[in-house]
């Protein structure tokens, strides 16, 4: 029996990220430099693969478990970049801290390229497990955050695994491409599996009803880790959901998945926006509004059943993925600049009063990110995200578009309040740190605002 051939070039970004983790653990004080260099190399390798032809490996017959296509490699580079950004705004940390971050990034890269249920779920766990340690600051509130995250995460992993098992039972395949057989399997089994798997993965995305951990954990975690949770980790959840739906469920269980996702989307938009309206703390506001954004992201997938049989059916997943990428870039910009000006935690919104005058650089990036999250020009990254989602919804499910619009209107109320405080308020006592990291985040936002094709091209999926 011949051994399976492995295309090591396709795995290069993953090898580099894993090696970075191993070296960082023993690098002592140089750990952060190792992490930055290693993950930059990993991201560069991903971009190199993005430029070249699509590679795939770990094949069973025609089905591959690891596919380094454009979307996967673009996302891998994004995971690596976000992790480097988080490390850059973390300040001086121990080698273990860098090791855990790099492991998490490796999980993200695997997730981006994973095309079977087992690889996906293992990758999600690899992305999440290091965070159990990282979210817990010393002290009572830190422990509370750690325990909350641990329990919520384990419960949702179990739910997702149960769903995956049911789908395997119904279709006889763990490959996403094999889930098309669900159409011929037991419909009840398929529907239950779909609901459990998507509900469980929705936890990572902090989509309602598994959202309640997010504001609590983000508020109590160290700020750089909150930035990671809100950007890279959230991107992981989004990618997992989109991959499962796009490559797997759309064909065999599109109707069931569409209903589940539409419910998740509407619930998230409602809960997230109402929660954010009541927030008086910056991180709390960003966390609750992030729940609403998870809803906007899921909305195109919720219109999946309307897309059945259309030749642009992949548009739903493309719109969701484009939204996810624009959104995490904006979140990363907001959290990175917030970390740069705040000492310990995000603090109350009022504490940012007049930041515009005391720390103009960080305040500019923060404002662009907040206005982008509201979806308004001149922060065009957010506008493009909204256009991508609304374009799809307008052609598939106008009622969901109206829900998204209603959510965005409520969202504007609290985002404007935040922007107004930063611009006109008084009394911000701020530090100026991490200038380079904030500048990089701002430059990335400016780049995708002027050239949205950078994002739209690699997030454009096909069957």
């Amino acid at each position: 029996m011949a051994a399976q051939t492995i295309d090591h070039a396709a795995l290069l970004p993953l090898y580099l990220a894993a090696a970075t983790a191993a070296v960082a653990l023993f690098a002592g004080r140089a750990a952060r430099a190792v992490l930055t260099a290693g993950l930059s190399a990993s991201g560069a390798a991903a971009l190199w693969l993005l430029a070249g032809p699509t590679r795939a490996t770990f094949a069973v017959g025609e089905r591959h478990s690891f596919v380094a296509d454009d979307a996967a490699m673009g996302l891998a580079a994004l995971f690596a970049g976000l992790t480097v950004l988080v490390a850059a705004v973390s300040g001086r940390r121990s080698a273990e801290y860098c090791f855990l971050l790099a492991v998490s990034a490796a999980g993200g890269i695997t997730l981006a390229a994973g095309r079977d249920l087992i690889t996906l779920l293992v990758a999600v766990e690899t992305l999440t497990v290091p965070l159990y340690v990282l979210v817990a600051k010393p002290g009572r509130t830190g422990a509370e955050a750690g325990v909350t995250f641990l329990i919520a995460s384990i419960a949702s992993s179990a739910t997702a695994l149960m769903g995956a098992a049911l789908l395997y039972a119904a279709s006889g395949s763990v490959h996403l491409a094999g889930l098309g057989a669900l159409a011929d399997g037991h419909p009840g089994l398929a529907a239950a599996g779909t609901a459990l798997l998507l509900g469980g993965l929705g936890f990572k995305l902090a989509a309602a009803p598994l959202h309640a951990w997010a504001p609590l954990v983000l508020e109590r975690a160290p700020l750089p880790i909150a930035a990671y949770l809100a950007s890279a980790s959230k991107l992981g959840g989004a990618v997992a959901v989109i991959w499962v739906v796009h490559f797997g469920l759309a064909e065999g269980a599109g109707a069931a998945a569409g209903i589940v996702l539409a419910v998740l989307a509407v619930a998230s938009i409602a809960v997230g926006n109402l929660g954010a309206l009541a927030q008086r703390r910056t991180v709390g506001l960003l966390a609750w509004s992030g729940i609403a954004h998870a809803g906007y992201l899921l909305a195109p997938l919720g219109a999946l059943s309307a897309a059945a049989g259309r030749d642009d059916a992949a548009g739903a997943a493309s719109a969701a993925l484009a939204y996810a990428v624009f959104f995490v870039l904006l979140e990363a910009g907001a959290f990175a600049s917030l970390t740069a000006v705040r000492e310990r935690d995000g603090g109350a919104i009022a504490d940012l009063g007049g930041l515009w005058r005391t720390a103009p650089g960080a305040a500019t990036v923060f404002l662009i990110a907040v206005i982008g999250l509201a979806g308004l020009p001149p922060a065009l990254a957010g506008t493009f995200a909204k256009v991508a989602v609304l374009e799809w919804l307008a052609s598939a499910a106008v009622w969901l578009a109206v829900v998204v619009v209603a959510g965005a209107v409520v969202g504007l109320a609290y985002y404007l309040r935040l922007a107004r405080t930063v611009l006109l308020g008084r009394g911000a006592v701020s530090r100026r740190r991490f200038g380079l990291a904030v500048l990089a985040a701002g430059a990335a936002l400016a780049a995708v605002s002027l050239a949205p094709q950078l994002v739209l091209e690699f997030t454009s999926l096909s069957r």
Partner: protein
Amino acid sequence: MGLILIAAVALPFAGAALTWWLRRSGIGVAAAALALVAVAVLPAGRDERWWHAVEFAWAPLIRLDFALAVDGVSWPLALLTALLGLLCCLHNARTGSPVLTALLLAVQGASTAVFLADNLVLFFIAFEAVLLPMWAVIHRYGDEATRRHAAGKFALFTVAGSLLMATGLFAAVADTGTAGLGDVIAAGGVSEPVSLAVFVLLAIGFAVKAPLWPLHSWLPDAHTAAPTVGSVLLAGVLLKLGTYGLIRVAGGIAPDGAAEAAPVIAALAAVGIIVAGLVCLAQPEIKRLIAYSSVAHMGFVVLAFATGTEAGVRAALFANLAHGLITPLLFFLAGALKTRTRTGQLAELGGLRTAAPALAGMLGFAALASLGLPGLAGFWGEAFTVYAAADRGGAWIALAAIAALGAFLTAAYLLRMLKHVSHGPQAAAVEGIPGATAGELAVWSPLAAAVLALGLAPGPLLDLLATGVL
């Protein structure tokens, strides 16, 4: 000429950035003047239908192209925008903050982009881009007591409208497979089954901006709270975004839906004319009165559009432009009056005729133009509106009668305003106020001259509007 088209949009933005950066209002005035020149030379060397057009791919995957085009419908509005932008910058350069000048230029640039956009996605983005600078104008420089509330209300109404409009636009894009505005219009709009849905979504969006009763309630608050230049741009430019969108975009890409929804739109417009007129009759504050009169005037525009006839659409476009000249003039004058007397309450004013004759004279002129005195710009649009509605016969005659009654109401409330402000004995607030300065007269006179010119010779503009792509 493509470069000039881009310059007309880019110059205000560049001026805004430089003014903000260097904190010099003079730069803003220069940029606005250059932008006016750029727009003014556009008719040179024009083609049929679209005079000039430029197009660059920006983000093809979301069907976004940087496509600008100009024709007989959009050019007068772009010119009006550039003129009002320059006048506002001039007005503000004497007294106001450079940051306000920068914000005004940003509003001007984004509005010009809306009028010139030939791509529906670009149209939406430009429409959204107007929101934040205008919000900042009201919120930062408005009346101390009401600005926060008014700015928030303005932002929420506008964004709700523009996102619904976006949904309609994208539904049209999905249906026709192209995002080119001219292409969609040339293809006869969207297919019949979705036409009504698309039109309703678009019409709600534009009706918020226009504003059409009952979606107008943000307008009086915003106008009352905004600084003078903010009110001028609101009335002269932002409301025009709504009516332009309704006539060109909603009517152009969903003509079947427009015809189907016309009776509802027309009825709302007629109700708006009467309601706004009655509110104005009882209105004690001068800026709020002018704001409500805008609702009535926009009601005429929408009613004329709803008739769907060629005469009606031309009347709508003409009345639109006339309102864009007259109401900004009224707001300039009301602003000048309020800064002098520190009150806008009609009951506390009086005798302006003797205290500041030039100011009172201009106010009288503008009020007469607004109430539709023959020979001034306001007359033609409203007369043609009544004519176009009556011409359709049946129930439309009733609407024409309501509109005519509305015109009487307009005369009544504007004359009432003049009675309170200009005539009678001098009130305490008016005593000893300085007259109009040369600088102020220089800002007002281009508007007054244009009102007179359009009133005496409406023909050339009507012919120009007839060449537009609709």
